[in-house]
Structures are given as C-alpha cells and as structure tokens.
C-alpha cells in the first residue's frame, strides 16, 4: 500500500518537472495552428491536426482545468470508459472544466466510424482528430513515459499536469480530477 502511494506520488510529480520545459515549447507553437487535410477531408466535421497543431490545446494559461482523452472508435477499452468521462464532464463543466476527446482514428474511419459514433452517443466533449503518423516523434512530446497505448488521458491546468496511460472508471477519474479543482 505504501509502495503504491510512493509510486503514485512519483507518477504525479514527474509531469510537474516536465511542464516547465513544455511551457516554452508551447509558446513556440501557439502561433502555428496547423489544420491539416481541410481540403482532402473537407467534409469531416471535426478539426484535423498534426502534433504541432494540437500542441496548443495541451496547455493553458487560463483558470480552466482540461481533461484530454486520447481514444479511437476501434479501441474497445476507450469506448468503454467514455460514458464515465462524459458524465463527469457534464457534472463539472460549470466548474471551469473542459474536455477534449482526441481521436486517433485513421482517415478512412473518420466518415464511416467516427462521425456516426459521436452522433449516436451525442458526445459533449470537444472532438478533434490527431492525424500525425510520425508517432515516435510526437508520443514522447505528449508525455515522455507514454508507451503509445490508448486509452490515455492528460489532466492539466496552468499549474499542474498529470498523464495516465490507463483506462478510468467514473469514480477513478473523478478522484483524479478533484486533485486539480
């Protein structure tokens, strides 16, 4: 139990060290909001970014707290945890919480799977698409310990930041989010 706490502490502290470095990266990329594929995939309802484009969404200077969930419609554990995320978001958005659902669906799934899924489940989180095949380059920029598994979730505000390469139940997510509020 103590070990768990210790480990957990370590996991929580690490991103704090990282955040300083990332802040400077942020200011560089803020200007350059690259939206890719707007012409080729002009009919898809969600913004499509590469990592440079999405990076500004992963940091904030405001008083809001952000939940950023990396998911895909083909990822079963991702789909299973989404209702818990949506429920918590509905309960906390009055409390300065924003939720971004970063889809890693492949281009050929955007119209056929992603759009119908978002529609059928009436997702309230802001859905964006991350389409950047240079995964070995951008995965460590999101978090240096991320092995690339999804679901993965980032929770941050202007002071704190934590990254989780795991799935969450509603209760587990609420517990984590409460630390930021």
């Amino acid at each position: 139990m103590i070990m768990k706490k210790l480990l957990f502490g370590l996991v929580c502290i690490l991103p704090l060290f990282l955040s300083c470095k990332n802040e400077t990266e942020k200011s560089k990329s803020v200007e350059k909001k690259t939206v890719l594929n707007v012409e080729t995939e002009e009919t898809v309802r969600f913004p499509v970014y590469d990592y440079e484009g999405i990076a500004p969404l992963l940091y904030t200077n405001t008083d809001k707290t952000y939940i950023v969930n990396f998911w895909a419609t083909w990822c079963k554990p991702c789909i299973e945890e989404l209702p818990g995320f949506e429920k918590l978001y509905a309960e906390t958005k009055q409390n300065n919480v924003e939720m971004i659902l970063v889809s890693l669906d492949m281009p050929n799934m955007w119209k056929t799977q992603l759009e119908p899924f978002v529609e059928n489940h009436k997702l309230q989180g802001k859905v964006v698409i991350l389409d950047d095949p240079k995964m070995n380059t951008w995965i460590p920029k999101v978090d240096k310990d991320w092995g690339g598994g999804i679901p993965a979730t980032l929770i941050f505000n202007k002071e704190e930041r934590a990254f989780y390469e795991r799935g969450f139940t509603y209760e587990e997510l609420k517990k984590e989010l409460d630390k930021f509020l």
Partner: protein
Amino acid sequence: MKTIKLLIAFILITLTTAFSIKPIVAGYKVGDVATDFKLKNTDGTMVSLADYQDAKGYLVIFTCNTCPYAMKYEERIIALDKKYKERGVPVVAIMPNNVDVKPGDSFENMQKRANEKGFTFPYLIDENQEIYPQYGATRTPHVYLLEKTTKGNIVRYIGAIDDNYQDESQVEERFVENAVDAMLSGKEVPIKTTKAIGCSIKA
C-alpha cells in the same frame, strides 16, 4: 543504535521500492536475453526459436488479425520476412490476445488470415498468454529484434516497424530494417527503441 535502526529502515525501503517497481516495468530491455518458447503455428506444428538452427537472429513480432495498425503493417511484415529470412533473420509472428475478448483473433481466424495473406512466416498463438508478458509487449504490432549469440537470444531493438503506419511511401526511417542491417554488419543498432500507437494487447 538509533542510527543503525534508521540505516536498516532506509535499506529496507530502498530494497522494497527497487523490487516493487520491477514488475510494473516488466518486460525486456535492449541487451536482455529473451526467452525461447514453444507455440502452436497456424499449420498445427509447434514452433520454437531453437528450430532455426542456422539463424543469426529473429524478428519476433507481436501482431493480430483485428488491430487496424497491425493490418496496415501486414504487407510490410511479409516483406521483412522475405528480405531477411535468407540473411538469417526470419520473422516469427505471435498473436498475444485473449481470444475470448477478441474472437476475431481466434486460432481459426488466424489460420484464415495466414492463408488469405499468404504469410511466409509462422503465425503462432500465445494460447496461455505467458510469452508476451515476459517480453513486455503491450500493443500490436510490437517488434523485438533478437540476436542469436552463445549467451542466448539478446534483444537488440524494441518498437515499431517504421515511422509511418499510414503510408509506406512516406516512410522516412525504417527502424527495423536499420536495426537488422546494423546487427548483421556487427554494428551498434542506431535507434534501439521507438514508440507507436497500437492496439493494447487484450489480457
């Protein structure tokens, strides 16, 4: 006396922490000796790394039928096997998923896939799900390049096949090919680990 007690406590904490961290980051790192296995191939035979007496190494690839990333890489895995089998580094593919959770990866469906695609390499099922945790594979596809040495099969590379799952023509770095080429020419592997989004292995 007090200092001794403190010292003992400190040592105990250090030790227990060190050992309790281990299982969490379980799996091989580059330089470790990888275990052999005996797993069922889609043709019904049992396959071990030791069966390849003339091999210089192996590309052990954890992959499956159902993962969109794994499917994107099927042709490239076949190409890797064709290119490197004759140079002594054959592909050995292992399907690690729990087939109760992923019926699309059942042994019958693996057989179908291997036939349809004309796999030139063994496609083995990790039926007891005992091998992939030892390797530390977490997603599909997940590649382990092993070098056969007198000390055992040593891990030389862990990670993705190349740097663009979507479009082979846009690939800039062929991680696995670069690693095998370096290994075969007795050089240090330039990039030893890479990260990629993949489908998590279903326990």
